[in-house]
């Protein structure tokens, strides 16, 4: 994967997005996108670079927002980052583009209460069917 070319293509395709590419260890480039452009960006990466290996999706509750990190890999790492509001976070599923994303989306969904619109089986994945507690990876609400 030619990371400079990837960044150039993303920049041309999404000129108003922040992108702010930065390199983090170990050999990973992190690019920031707006939530509505995440799916088109993945589509572009698949069409232009055949970048189809999604290692996983990390969801993080920072206290102010919910961050979603999509970690791709092809010889080196590329992470697409986007932020969702803590209240009622919604984003569009990727599983029609990358079927392997199904489990990662279900996990992020139940651990952080994110809704992946269009996911065909948003059932409990790791948590018990009768789990009634708060989503385990959400920060506790201030008392």
């Amino acid at each position, binding site marked *: 994967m030619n990371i400079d070319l990837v960044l150039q293509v993303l920049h041309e395709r999404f000129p108003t997005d922040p992108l702010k590419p930065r390199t*983090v260890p170990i050999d990973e480039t992190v690019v920031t996108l707006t939530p509505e452009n995440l799916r088109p960006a993945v589509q572009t990466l698949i069409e232009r670079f055949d970048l189809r290996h999604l290692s996983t999706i990390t969801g993080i509750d920072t206290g102010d927002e919910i961050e979603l990190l999509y970690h791709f890999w092809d010889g*080196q790492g590329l992470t697409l980052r986007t932020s969702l509001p803590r209240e009622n976070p919604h984003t569009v599923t990727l599983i029609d583009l990358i079927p392997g994303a199904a489990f990662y989306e279900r996990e992020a969904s139940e651990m952080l209460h994110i809704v992946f619109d269009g996911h065909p089986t948003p059932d409990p994945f790791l948590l018990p069917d009768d789990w009634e507690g708060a989503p385990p990876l959400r920060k506790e609400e201030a008392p």
Partner: protein
Amino acid sequence: MSRITIPIGPQHPALKEPLSLLLTAEGERIVESTLRIGYAHRGLERIFQNRNYVQNIHIVERVCGICSHVHTTAYCQGVEALLGLQVPPRALYLRTLLCELERIHSHLLWLGVLAEHIGFTTVFMYTWRDREIVLDIMEELSGGRVAHAVNAIGGVRIDIDSEHIDSILARLDDLERQIDTFLGVVLHEHTFQVRTHAIGRLTAEQARRYCVVGPVARASGIDVDLRRDEPYAVYDQLDFRVIVAHEGDVWARTMVRTMESVESLQMCRQLLRNLPDGPLAVRAPRHVPAGEVISRCEAPRGELVYYIRSDGSDRPARVKVRTPTLPSLAALAEQLQDINTADVPAVLAGVDLCIACADR
């Protein structure tokens, strides 16, 4: 033809760990399968946030009961990258040595499980007997057969002397003779061939769609191995082949794993013969500067990913673990489609699932 639904698990004699599989069969043919995991979920990612970086090594080691060392390797190298630590070469050699011993132990364990599932008990008995050679070596080195507690942030906690190196090298020769015998069985034994050929097939395109990694991907013709493609520890100094097959069935996976074990033996020899002198660890501060890191390792089952974010304190703000079993599970339904009911155990074993890893 009428349909019948067969539940397998969460507790079932064919499963080594809890997993719920609901199979729908028409006669002997599987037409549909659904999967549910989570029976071994321990909430580790939440626990990581409540422990400091050193305490977490202990928990990371317990994500998996087979490949515990590669988990601490991925975690420690991630934290070391955040700290900007230069780990001494001798430590990296010993770390890599344990990784490769662990791969041999994992692959032999797996071959035994597969053999037992297809009714070939002799191979099961012999592989598990010979796996003891590796377990003994790891126990001598670390004090533990499965949980080794070898890795520390900044280096390793074990050392080895030249007498011990000679003793290990001699036993690796014995082990290689045994693995050659198993390879002969895989290649020439009729029983083995008929129970594994053209079963549980995954094409390269299917494997790509589900982002499958490790030996399962390599057995489907995807030439990927992080030890070569993005070398960590001292893999860039080792001479080894990446084994790839194209059939994509249980037999191809057996070939890939068995031949990989031989490669791992060669790597252990290189590591022991070229072990540099020097310190075993550098001191690591308790507080880790704010930042994030993505650490990838090639575990026995494939790409293992650790994402670690630090907020500058002595505890991680987030640790995310993606184990290689998850994508394999995602691709399981494709492999079970249209197979004979009697082949289900062989397919389940062929993937080399580690449910504790997947559930975390």
